């Protein structure tokens, strides 16, 4: 029995954005975020929106997937709108007034502006996880975090932990499935009752699962030690993700353009 396991939200298609090095994409996300915060007017937001739309098209990712993240933010967005649009006893002329509360014209514009900014940020940054595998992200993260080793952040070890976690997600999922089947055969029901009862039904699954995970961890530690693992120091890589000339060129030109647009508009 093979359970198809996909994690994160990676969309496996071939595109120029997918081919870009993970570190370059991380740099671009940072530049994009900065630019979106620098922008002061709707003209700037329009330019940023065009950039995101172009990136989505170039990445050949379904637009619906890129926009999916907005749904989770509905509350935050509504709150941003209301908080900006409604004023308490304003001195200026207001559109609608209910007691001391008033709906304010420039306030609505502010609300739309801030909400659009959040939407742009969410959609723009989601392109990173949509076009980069978790393994590439982990490797990229290690490289980006490397300067932090100077202040004692164990970048290599953190990346190794993430890699191992990724490696054991499918294994653990398969094992969980096996235990569910075994408990079902013993009469356990996972599909009835309210949320509390359903959650409780998973206790007999979680206990053996965790016991097994601890045993696994111990054997894995022995295996890693036997294969000369002694921390991230001095390790080489079979497939080092190297920033090529194209990656650097894209990172530098696009970041510069984004920041310049952010400052100008």
């Amino acid at each position, binding site marked *: 029995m093979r359970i198809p396991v996909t994690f994160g939200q990676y969309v496996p298609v071939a595109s120029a954005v997918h081919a870009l090095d993970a570190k370059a994409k991380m740099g671009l996300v940072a530049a994009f975020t900065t630019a979106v915060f620098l922008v002061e007017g709707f003209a700037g937001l329009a330019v940023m929106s065009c950039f995101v739309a172009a990136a989505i098209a170039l990445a050949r990712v379904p637009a619906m997937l890129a926009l999916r993240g907005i749904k989770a933010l509905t509350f935050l967005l509504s709150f941003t709108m209301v908080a900006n649009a409604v004023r308490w006893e304003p001195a200026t002329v207001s559109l609608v007034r209910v007691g001391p509360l008033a709906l304010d014209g420039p306030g609505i514009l502010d609300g739309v502006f801030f909400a659009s900014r959040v939407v742009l940020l969410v959609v723009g940054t989601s392109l990173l996880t949509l076009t980069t595998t978790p393994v590439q992200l982990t490797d990229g993260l290690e490289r980006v975090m490397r300067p932090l080793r100077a202040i004692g952040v164990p970048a290599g070890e953190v990346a190794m932990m993430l*890699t191992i976690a990724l*490696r054991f997600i*499918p294994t653990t999922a398969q094992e969980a499935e096996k235990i569910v089947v075994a408990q079902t055969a013993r009469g356990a029901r996972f599909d009835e009752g309210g949320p509390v009862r359903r959650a409780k039904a998973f206790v007999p699954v979680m206990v053996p699962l965790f016991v097994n995970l601890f045993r696994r961890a111990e054997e894995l530690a*022995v295996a890693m030690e*036997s294969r000369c693992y*002694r921390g991230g120091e*001095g390790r080489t890589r*079979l497939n080092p993700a190297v920033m090529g000339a194209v990656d650097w060129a894209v990172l530098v030109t696009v970041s510069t353009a984004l920041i310049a647009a952010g400052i100008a508009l």
Partner: protein
Amino acid sequence: MRGPSSSEECGLIELHEVSVTYPGAERPALDHVTLSIVPGRTLALLGPNGSGKSTLARLCNALLLPTSGRVVVDGMSTVDEATLWQIRARVGFVQQNPENQIVGTVVEEDVAFGPENLGVPAHELRSRVDDALGAVGLTGLERREPHLLSEGQKQRLAIAGALALRPAYLVLDEPTAMLDGEGRSDVLAALRRLRAHGVGIVHITHHLEDVIDADAVAVLDEGTVAFSGTPAELLADPQAAETLGVEVPAIVVLAEALREHGVPVPRDAFTAESVAEAVWRS
């Protein structure tokens, strides 16, 4: 069944009067054991659960240090911190459950894990990975995710992971215990090829038929070496072997029965093929 000499300079793992007592244990897990492991030869370790087999395995690559006695790998003592990583690189270690030994998210990355830890340069990593995968017959599966492999393939991947360190010795703790028939014979075939290439193998198992072609057999019992010799010597007296807790292979029992019925099956016929040939000739 000794090495070229009992010299401690090179080409040998020597266990000399080794005892191990775990903290809080009443009796030692190993009690004055002396054994040597020679490149290009297979030493089979048999014995019931708790007889000290796994303890012995962990002594060979310094995962465990002896309470008394010495373990010397190619002239390097396992208690010497300075040569610890040289010893680990020279003695590969494979455990029973292949799943829990695989670190990489794809096959080739896992094989490269050991040499990556040693800081082997990238171009050499590639040839080590190719060699190791070739040696266990997994060439072509470089980009496969480990959870999509069969159990036998996973165990061969674990062996390849040890081989990528270019070890002189390979210690395997019940490597076939969790495998089906096909996976088991694939692993055994890979081990035979490695021996032919000069790797010294310690094969811990419950199944004598897995190691019937071993160069030497040691049976452990309650931490001591109860028998040391060749498989043929062990099976010369099947009753004695059984009292040591060794399960005599069915084919040997059959050969014995055939002999009693007057079929001339030679005493060194321990495989189905050789017994069948003897029957066919008679």
